[in-house]
């Protein structure tokens, strides 16, 4: 029992590792601030093209979505980070993370937005168009807001997954929270810094997880 406290909940070591882990936390938040908005925008674009009258465009986007959903995010990240240099394209870790997660998240957010848009009755389109709004205006101001409301739990839930995904950036040596904590672990030969990072992840995401549970229960009723 004492060994467990010593090796996992060592307050002294946590205190020493705290500055490093907090620096990592900022990088984690930076990645989130970049990755979540571009994923959302990508998702809306993916969903919008699924409504396009051009069949080729629809098919190409669907193929890409299927492709990026079939590849694990870590594999996508490794391909972008270690594969592209072979083609003469050398990326910083942040750029690689942004590109890989943009591809992955747009596919997932896109599916959610599409489900939301499909849940809006067609009468809404017709009514909005008949008031003189253009197709784009109708999509942005009438259909999308209602669709988003219908799939809000899924959007929050997916955003939690995206935040958790940022920990993968440690694999391409991006000094985010997990990377920093693991570095502290290898310097101190003690797992307490990782426990500290885990506690910070929980503090960040637990409220969101509770929120999703509540949203899911309200919507299903």
């Amino acid at each position, binding site marked *: 029992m004492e060994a467990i406290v010593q090796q*996992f909940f060592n307050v002294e070591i946590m205190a020493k590792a705290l500055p490093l882990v907090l620096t990592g936390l900022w990088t984690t938040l930076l990645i989130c601030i970049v990755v979540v908005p571009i994923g959302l925008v990508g998702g809306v674009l993916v969903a919008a093209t699924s409504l396009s009258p051009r069949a080729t465009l629809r098919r190409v986007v669907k193929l890409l979505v299927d492709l990026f959903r*079939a*590849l694990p995010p*870590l594999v996508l990240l490794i391909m972008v980070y270690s594969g592209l240099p072979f083609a003469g394209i050398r990326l910083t870790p942040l750029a690689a993370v942004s590109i890989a997660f943009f591809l992955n998240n747009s596919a997932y957010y896109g599916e959610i937005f599409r489900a939301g848009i499909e849940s809006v009755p067609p009468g809404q389109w017709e009514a909005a168009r008949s008031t003189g709004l253009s197709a784009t205006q109708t999509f942005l101001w009438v259909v999308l807001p209602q669709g988003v409301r219908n799939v809000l739990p899924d959007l929050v839930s997916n955003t939690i997954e995206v935040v958790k995904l940022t920990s993968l950036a*440690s694999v391409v040596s991006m000094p985010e929270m997990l990377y920093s904590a693991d570095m502290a672990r290898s310097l101190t030969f003690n*797992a307490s810094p990782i*426990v500290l990072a*885990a506690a910070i992840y929980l503090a960040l*995401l*637990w409220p969101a997880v509770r929120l999703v549970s509540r949203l899911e229960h309200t919507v299903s009723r």
Partner: protein
Amino acid sequence: MEHFLDTFFKPAILASTWPAIAKGMLVTIEIAILVVITGLALGLVLAVLRTLRYRLLDILIILFVDFFRALPPLVAVLLIYFGLPNIGINLPSFAVLWLVLSLVLTAFAEEIFWAGILSVRKGQWEAARSTGLGAGQTLAFVVLPQAIRLAVPPLTNRTIAIIKNTALGTVIGVPEIINNATTAVSFLGNATPLMMGALAYLILFTPIIAFGAWIERRFAWRRS
């Protein structure tokens, strides 16, 4: 163009590396099957335990579920793989990955099964009990079959997302697809194995994702 093909699709490397990639696929499939079995079974057990409505047990299960929904799996993988040896427990990397992904799937599956059980109407319980079935029989033969059917579409998608996390095994040296591919890349100085690894994932997961979409359509149609 020739240079491009030589870097990303070199025939000689395709021929020499495919056994390693195929072995990686087998490891990925093994872990995925084990995770699906243990994760879904444990998730169902926890959901059934919640029907007993013991307050303390409920709270513990909710805490467990929230914990694994909020924690990035890679954090748990590193914590267990590098932490446990310090207190004298040495688990092979394969077991660590299996354990972590099973717990993550357990958490999500419990949530989905429980939502399914809750959405079975109270009248079903009462009607079944009034025909003389015991509480356990009612649960097993009346409530769970309906609950599980409701749970199948969301559960399929979540399970697919979680078994894609088998790729995390590469961080602790599980010889699965991407681990074998990156090892070959650094050994050969050529990107061909990486493309083969990606292709291997597409071969494994494209049918599974199509199956998930089919399940979703089919069950949605039945309900309406």
